[in-house]
C-alpha cells in the first residue's frame, strides 16, 4: 500500500501497526481506530459548515445584488468565525414556561441527525465510514432525527408561533419523505443492494441517465426536507417570525442554523453519491483521493444549484405544498416505480445503450402525462375573482372564472 495512491489506508495501517506493536489486542486496536475515524468524520462536517455559511451568504448576496459579507478578512472569509465567537458568548435565555428536556434536546438532535448521515457516505473506493448493508434505510431512518428535533423545539418552547411552525414542519417533512423514499427505491432496484458503496459501484452508467425523473423527485424532496425556499414555510419569517426556533438564543439557536446549512450540503452529497456516480471518474479506482475530489466537484455543483433555487423562488402556500406532494409527486413516483420495473425486466441488462434510451423515453412519457394531469386538475379549481368596475355606477360583482 502506497502513501501516494491511498493516503488514508496507509495512515490507518500505520496506526494499527503501532498499536499492535504496543501490545494492544487486535479487537481493541480496531475499537480505537473506530473511535478516531468516527471522531474525525463527525468533526470535519462541523468545520466545513463554517465555510459553507460564508459561501452561501456570499452567493445569496450576489443573487440579490448585494456584496454579502466583505469586512472580516479577505472577501469576508472570517465572518463566520467572528459570528461563531459572538454566538458562543451570547446569553442562553430559556423562557420561563418552557418544557426543559425537549427544549434543550432539540438543537442537539437536529445537528446529530444531519451528522449521522455522513457515516455511510462513500467518499472514495476505500474512504468511507462503513458500508452498511442497509445503508439507504439507515439514511431514511436517521433523517427522521431532524424532524424529531423540530417537533421537540416547537413543543418545548411553550410559544404559539413555535408550535405553529412545528406543525407545518412536521406536515411538510413527513409528507416529502414519501416521494423521497419511493424515488430511492429505483437506484436500489438497479443495484440489488441497499449498501451505499454498492450503489456507487453499480453506476457504470450514472443513475441520473437511467432514471432522470427519480433524480428530479429526489432533488425536489430533499429541498423540501431541508426546508429551504420555495419550501421554507416552516420558518416563514414574515408570518411566523421564524417558526419553531423563535424562543432559542445563543448557541442553541446557532445549532439549528448549523444543522440547516450542513443539511443542504449533505443532501447534495447524497444526490451526487446516489445519482451522479459518487466518487467514480477516470483513475478514481487507483487513486482514492482523486475519487474524493470528483465527489466534491459534483457535490458543489448540486449544492450551488440548490442555492440558486433558494435565491430565486418565492415561498409557496401550505395547500400548494400539500397538493404538489400528494397529487403530483407521490403518484408520479409510484408510476415511475411500476413502469421502470416492467421496462427494465423486458430489456436484458447487457444492452446498455438500448436500456438507457428506453428508460429516457419512459421518463419523458411519464413527465408528459404528469404535466397533462396537472393541467387537468388545476383547471377544475374555480376561484372567485373580484371583477373590476367597468363603469362608475355599477356595483362590483363576483363571478366564477376558471383559471
Amino acid at each position, binding site marked *: 500500500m502506497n502513501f501516494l495512491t491511498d493516503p488514508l489506508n496507509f495512515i490507518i495501517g500505520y496506526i494499527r501497526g503501532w498499536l499492535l506493536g504496543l501490545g494492544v489486542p487486535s479487537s481493541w486496536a480496531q*475499537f480505537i481506530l*473506530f*473511535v478516531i475515524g*468516527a471522531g474525525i468524520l*463527525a468533526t470535519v462536517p462541523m468545520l466545513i459548515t463554517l465555510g459553507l455559511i460564508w459561501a452561501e451568504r456570499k452567493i445569496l448576496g450576489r443573487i440579490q445584488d448585494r456584496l454579502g459579507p466583505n469586512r472580516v478578512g479577505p472577501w469576508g472569509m472570517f465572518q463566520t468565525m467572528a459570528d461563531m465567537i459572538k*454566538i*458562543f*458568548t*451570547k*446569553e*442562553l*435565555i*430559556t*423562557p*420561563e*414556561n418552557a418544557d426543559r428536556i425537549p427544549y*434543550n434536546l432539540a*438543537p*442537539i438532535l437536529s*445537528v*446529530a441527525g444531519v451528522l*449521522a448521515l455522513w*457515516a455511510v457516505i462513500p467518499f472514495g473506493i476505500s474512504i468511507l*465510514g*462503513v458500508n452498511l*448493508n442497509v445503508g439507504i434505510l439507515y439514511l431514511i431512518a436517521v433523517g427522521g432525527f431532524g424532524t424529531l428535533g423540530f417537533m421537540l423545539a416547537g*413543543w418545548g418552547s*411553550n*410559544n*404559539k408561533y413555535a408550535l405553529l411552525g412545528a*406543525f407545518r414542519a412536521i*406536515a411538510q417533512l*413527513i*409528507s416529502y*419523505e*414519501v416521494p423521497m423514499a*419511493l424515488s430511492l*427505491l*429505483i437506484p*436500489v*432496484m438497479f443495484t*440489488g443492494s441497499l449498501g451505499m458503496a454498492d450503489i456507487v459501484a453499480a453506476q457504470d452508467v450514472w443513475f441520473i441517465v437511467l432514471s432522470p425523473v427519480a433524480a428530479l423527485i429526489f432533488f425536489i424532496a430533499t429541498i423540501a426536507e431541508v426546508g429551504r425556499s420555495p419550501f421554507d414555510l416552516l420558518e416563514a419569517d414574515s408570518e411566523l*417570525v421564524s417558526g419553531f426556533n*423563535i424562543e432559542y438564543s*445563543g*448557541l442553541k439557536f446557532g*445549532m439549528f442554523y448549523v444543522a440547516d446549512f450542513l443539511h443542504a450540503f449533505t443532501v447534495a452529497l447524497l444526490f451526487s453519491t446516489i445519482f451522479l456516480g459518487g466518487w467514480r471518474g477516470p483513475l478514481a479506482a487507483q487513486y482514492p483521493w482523486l475519487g474524493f475530489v470528483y465527489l466534491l466537484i459534483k457535490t458543489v455543483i448540486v449544492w450551488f444549484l440548490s442555492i440558486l433555487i433558494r435565491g430565486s423562488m418565492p415561498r409557496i402556500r401550505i*395547500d400548494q405544498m*400539500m*397538493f404538489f406532494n*400528494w*397529487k403530483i409527486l*407521490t*403518484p408520479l413516483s*409510484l408510476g415511475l*416505480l*411500476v413502469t421502470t*420495473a*416492467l421496462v427494465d*425486466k423486458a430489456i436484458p441488462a447487457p444492452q446498455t445503450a438500448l436500456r438507457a434510451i428506453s428508460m429516457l423515453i419512459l421518463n419523458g412519457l411519464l413527465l408528459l402525462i404528469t404535466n397533462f394531469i396537472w393541467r387537468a386538475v388545476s383547471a377544475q379549481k374555480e376561484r372567485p375573482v373580484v371583477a373590476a368596475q367597468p363603469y362608475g355606477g355599477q356595483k362590483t360583482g363576483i363571478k366564477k372564472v376558471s383559471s
Partner: protein
Amino acid sequence: MLSDWLYIGIFLFIALLLPAVAIGLAAILSPRKPNKIKNITYECGLETVGETWVQFKAQYYIFALIFLIFDVETVFLFPWAVAYQKVTIFGVIEAIIFVAILLAALVYAWRKGALEWF
C-alpha cells in the same frame, strides 16, 4: 457485520456529543442575567393569552394517517427492490398489484377530499 454497527454506535454517540459539548461550553462562557421581562414568552411584544398547547387542525392528523400508510408500504417495497434482479416477471407483477391497491387507496382518499387543505 457486527463491527459495522459498533462503528455506527460510536458515530451516533460522537454526533450527539459534539453539539452537546458545544452548547455546554457556550453555557459556561455566556453571561447569565435573567429577569422577569426577558424570560417571558416572545410573541411579538404582546402578552401571551391562554393555553399555548392549543388544539390543532384536523387536517394534520389526516395527513399523518396517509403518511403512515405510504411509509409502511415503502418499507415493504424495499426488500422487493433489493431482490428485484433475481425475481422473475411474476415477482414484478405481484409488486404491481401491491402498488395498485395502494394507488387505489390514494385515489379513494383523493375523491373523499382527504388530500385537500382547507
